[in-house]
Structures are given as C-alpha cells and as structure tokens.
C-alpha cells in the first residue's frame, strides 16, 4: 500500500488525539508529546509503503510512536523516569463513584507517576481500547507480559488515584485549619 492511497486527513482526524495522549503518557510534557505525534505522521508519509494492510493503521501508528520515543530516549535525558514506592499505604477501596471524580488531567498525571513498563500498556488499553494482543505488538513484548502488566498497572493506578483523591479532599480542610489558626 502506498501512502498516497491512504486518506491522510482521515487518519489524522481519527488517530491524532489518542496518539498525542499516548505520547504525553510517555514523554510527560506537551511539547515532546506534540513532536512525537508529528514525527509519527512524518513516518506515515515517508514510510507508509511499509504498511501493507490498511486495517493495521492504528497499530502501526502506535507502534511507530513508541519506537520513536524509545529512539529519542536513548539519546536524551529529558524524559523523566518516575519511581514508585513499593510500600503502598493502606488505602480505601477504589470505587466507581471515586472514578467519577477523576478527570483527564488527573488520570494522566497519575499515570505518569507509574513506572513506564506498567504505564504504556495501561494507557494503550484505556486510550484506544487496544486488545492485549495488539498492545503486545505495539510494545514488542509477550502477550503474557502484557496481561501481567495490565493487571498490576491497574492496581497501581487505582492506588495512586486514591491517594490523589484523599489529598484533594484533605487540602480544603488543611486550608480551613490554617485560616482558623491565623484568626
């Protein structure tokens, strides 16, 4: 398939937002996320001939973006590496009602606190609804590893969201206490 045969506008329209969000989850800042997305579309235009099956466009784009990111990371130290403590505090059960309080920025910001090997499959799962087999192809890891990382990644994400929500709930009280002390 020649890239000329692809409806470039349609591919941009359908995939650029989830690609950007995936890029952000890897890079952690908007400038690099935008550039990763742009670089991915450059490669579609310049190397789209490698794409034999049009139905694979989505997987190809995510795979390409991830490989571009890995290539950049080898030559740069700008991508922060987040460590998560293995000691998790005792947390309440994360409920659907609590999930309703999570907006896009909080979800992404929290995901960025999780180690990348858990974060990448997790974001692909939530963002674009990629099947675990497709995630394995994008990240070039075994299917069993994807399932294991999804399972653990979900657990980590929910714990981190619990912490965030608890802090959000506690901050107004702390502010009230400060004001009371001042008076």
């Amino acid at each position, binding site marked *: 398939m*020649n*890239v*000329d045969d692809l409806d*470039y*506008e349609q591919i*941009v*329209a359908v995939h*650029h*937002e*989830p690609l*950007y*969000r995936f890029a*952000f989850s890897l890079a952690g800042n*908007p400038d690099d996320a*935008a*550039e990763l*997305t*742009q*670089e991915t*579309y*450059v*490669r579609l*235009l*310049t*190397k*789209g*001939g490698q794409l034999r099956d049009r139905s694979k466009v989505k997987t190809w784009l995510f795979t390409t973006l991830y490989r571009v990111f890995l*290539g*950049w990371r080898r*030559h*740069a130290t*700008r991508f922060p590496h987040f460590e998560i403590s293995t000691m998790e505090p005792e947390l309440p059960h*994360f*409920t*659907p009602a609590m*999930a*309703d309080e*999570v*907006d*896009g*920025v*909080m*979800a*992404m910001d929290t*995901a960025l606190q999780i180690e990348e090997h858990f974060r990448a499959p997790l*974001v692909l*799962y*939530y*963002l674009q*609804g990629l*099947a*675990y087999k497709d995630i394995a192809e994008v990240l070039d890891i075994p299917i069993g590893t*994807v*399932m*294991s990382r*999804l*399972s653990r990644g*979900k657990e980590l*994400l*929910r714990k981190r969201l619990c912490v965030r929500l608890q802090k959000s709930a506690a901050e107004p009280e702390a502010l009230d206490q400060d004001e009371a002390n001042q008076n």
Partner: protein
Amino acid sequence: MTRDVAKFILRAYRVDGQDQSDPQVADALEMVKRDPELARWFAEEQALDSRLARSFGAFPVPQDLKTQLLAARQVIVVPFWRRHPVWLAAAAAVVILLGIVFAPSPWRSGPALAEYQPEEILRFAAQGPHATTMVGSLADTRKWLATAGLPANLELSGPLASLRYKGCRTVAWRGRTVAMVCLFDGARHLDLFVFNHGSTTAGLPGEQPEFAQVSGLATATWTRAGHTYLLAAHDAVAPEILKRYL
C-alpha cells in the same frame, strides 16, 4: 480455571465487548456466569474501566495539533525520486544547523574562498523550507546525500552525530549545491550546512571551529576532510553554546 486466573484474564478484557470471542476470555466469561462473587467483581471492574477510559479520553489535546499535522504536509516538497509526500511542520518552526556539501568536482566552480560569506548561506535557514525530505537518522541522511549526488562521507563529532536528524534539502549558493540538514537535540533546533570547498582554503575556517554571531544566529564553522561545515542555532544563544556539539 480458578477465580484468580479468571480475574487475571478479565483485567485485559475491554469494556466494549470486543474480546468476547477470544478463547481465554470466553472461558473466563463462562466462569463469571457460574460464580456470583466473580460476577460482582467483574461488574465493578467494568464500571471502573469504563470511567477511567472516559477520563483518559478527556485529556486535552492542543487545538492546533490537527491543523499543524494537516498543514505541514502542504509545505513539503516531494523529491521526484520518492513518490511519497513528506511532512515538514516541525522543521518549519525552527532552525538550526548548516552544513554545506559541495557538488561533485565538475560543478566545483564556486566562489573564491575570499568570497565565502556565511550570512548568505544562513539566509536559507531563515527563509525555509528547512527540508524537502524528512529523515530519521544520520544513516538516512547519508543515504539521501548519496541519492542526491552529494558527498555522504561526513566526518562529524560524536555529539553532532547523535543528534536527531529531521530533514534535508539542497540549496544553490553561487553555483554550488549545498546540503542543508535540520537537526534537533531535544530542546534546540539547528541547521547544518555542508559544502566542499574545492582545492583552495583561503578565507575558510580551519579545522578548529570558529564561533560567531552572524545575522542574529549563533554559528560555528570548521573545515574537515575537504568539507566546510556551518552549524547554526536560532534561539538567540551565545555561539559558545555550540561547543557542546563539536
């Protein structure tokens, strides 16, 4: 299949039901029908996943990103030997390095060395487009140089060679064909021009890089193995900052 194994499998199950036909998932779903506790767990899992998927999907995307992606394609000049259109948005926004590779010997009727004027070459960096062909690496750049009939045996320092190579073009300067390469180091865009200076060297930089501010650009120029290189940064930095690349 134990309940824990079923949970492990179902954590990879997508909320839109697309995985129902997957054999592993199908077995786990069968178990859900028979195990009320597992069914309760699964219902909550699905509720959480659908909400979190909605949250991630609401993460804001820059409003102009789509426009940039679509518009960038229009400014790319497609080389005739490559039928695939190329995109050049990022390169149009920045600039950086100059390298001029002169044409093969029959074309080497360029300026006398005393006529070497870096500001004339740098003008290309200010005018754009900065590339007509997108590349992804130094290896790609060398291939492109060879394809364009230009010398590909660039001798670059380690830091310069390890930058991200984003695009190339040729520019005509005083009858010579000069290679212009657009680079990025993760924070700064650079243009590199490379040209073959021919048999004389008067007026051209030596092997030790010379740093200067030319036409508002930080520049470094040097000559090595028959090629003269001009590297330029466009973000109003002191020329000495370019030492890190040389």
